[in-house]
């Protein structure tokens, strides 16, 4: 979707303002929200790609005005409501409706480190040979999917060169929408800054993005 999250290339968001000696968390609730994200049970359809899409769907004014861990709160609440695991009344009150079932399969503290070490492997076998070779010129397709995509707007229609080939990876555009992992070859494409931003950009510099095969066409 062409959402507010797709920030690459925008002006007007102000100075970067790094914080000196920034703490891990700015308030205790941020730490609790991190632990909920990592340790709570999620509806089974909420994989990493659907999670990212839920965050993209935060209304733009809230996306820009609320802090990072509040995005996580909003995304998880949206997931719980959509799955039917919670009602809006329960979220508002903080109390479970009477008579609801209680689960007993939540992650235990002693399972945390194993989860950290083993989760999040997204490479998959792909039956087809890679369509593109390292060094080949390719164009990022000028497409505008309405659902989740990892093809940023600033590269669409632009020509770059295949820099790396990563083998098969889970395809987010499908995985976010319950259409399976549908793995595809994944490549790193290097785009000259002048191709992206015109003749005022540096002739030496480039920006690389990791793009799946169906985002690309020969150029």
């Amino acid at each position, binding site marked *: 979707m062409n959402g507010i999250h797709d920030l690459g290339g925008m002006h007007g968001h102000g*100075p970067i303002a790094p914080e000196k000696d920034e703490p891990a968390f700015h308030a205790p*609730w941020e730490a609790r929200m991190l*632990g909920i994200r990592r340790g709570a049970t999620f509806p089974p359809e909420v994989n990493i790609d659907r999670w990212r899409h839920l965050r993209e769907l935060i209304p733009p004014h809230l996306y820009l005005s609320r802090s990072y861990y509040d995005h996580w709160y909003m995304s998880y609440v949206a997931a719980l409501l959509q799955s039917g695991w919670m009602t809006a009344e329960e*979220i508002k009150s903080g109390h479970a409706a009477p008579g609801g079932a*209680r689960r007993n399969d939540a992650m*235990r503290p002693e399972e945390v480190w194993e989860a950290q070490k083993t989760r*999040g*492997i997204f490479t998959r076998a792909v039956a087809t040979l890679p369509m593109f070779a390292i060094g080949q010129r390719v164009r990022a397709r000028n497409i505008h999917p309405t659902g989740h995509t*990892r093809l940023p707007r600033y590269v669409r229609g632009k020509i770059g060169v295949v820099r790396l080939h990563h083998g098969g990876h889970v395809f987010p555009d499908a995985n976010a929408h319950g259409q399976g992992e549908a793995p595809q070859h994944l490549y790193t494409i290097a785009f000259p800054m002048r191709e992206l931003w015109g003749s005022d950009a540096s002739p030496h510099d480039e920006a690389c993005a990791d793009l799946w095969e169906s985002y690309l066409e020969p150029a």
Partner: protein
Amino acid sequence: MSQHSHSHDDSVEMARHHHIHADLPPDPALRVKALESLLTDKGLVDPATIDAWVETYESRIGPRNGAKVVAKAWVDPDYKQRLLSDATTAIAELDLLGSQGQHMVALENTPGIHNLVVCTLCSCYPLPLLGLPPTWYKSAPYRSRAVLDPRGVLREFGLDLPEHVKIRVWDSTAEVRYLVLPERPAGTEHLNEAQLATLVTRNAMIGVAKVTA
């Protein structure tokens, strides 16, 4: 086109649930407290597991992990070669892979090439090696301008690179995570691997700083 319309319907349905936020208190501390209580009531989370995750990210995972990789590459040419050709395997040798850092690429800074890492679409970051990302990395100013004006961004971090240095920006749009291998600073020939690791900063491994002796 059926795939796109399916996605669209699904996304509209997902977006509808964000409307609840108009009816909730603005203070996130209150909302998160209520959520944790509700999840605990329903058996969807164990508060002790939340504690364990916080402890993990506060004390077991952080930039010193990435610094170990960098320092080893500086003192061991064979390791450096393995790191640059297959970072995932080289980092696995040190048992430092993990969630949000299972598929790794290392980017070598040289006198002629400077690498800079960003995630324009969200906040992808090599957590097992660098810990939790700083707020600026996750925020709109950095995410919007790192790909458009990296030289201007680097100047905001106090790094003014000469025009002849090529800048490569790496936008983490997939599940590959990038670690910058900074240049070893001059005058560190007498330091051992552990001493070198103490010089390596998080910002240098993102590419917004150089390592100084």
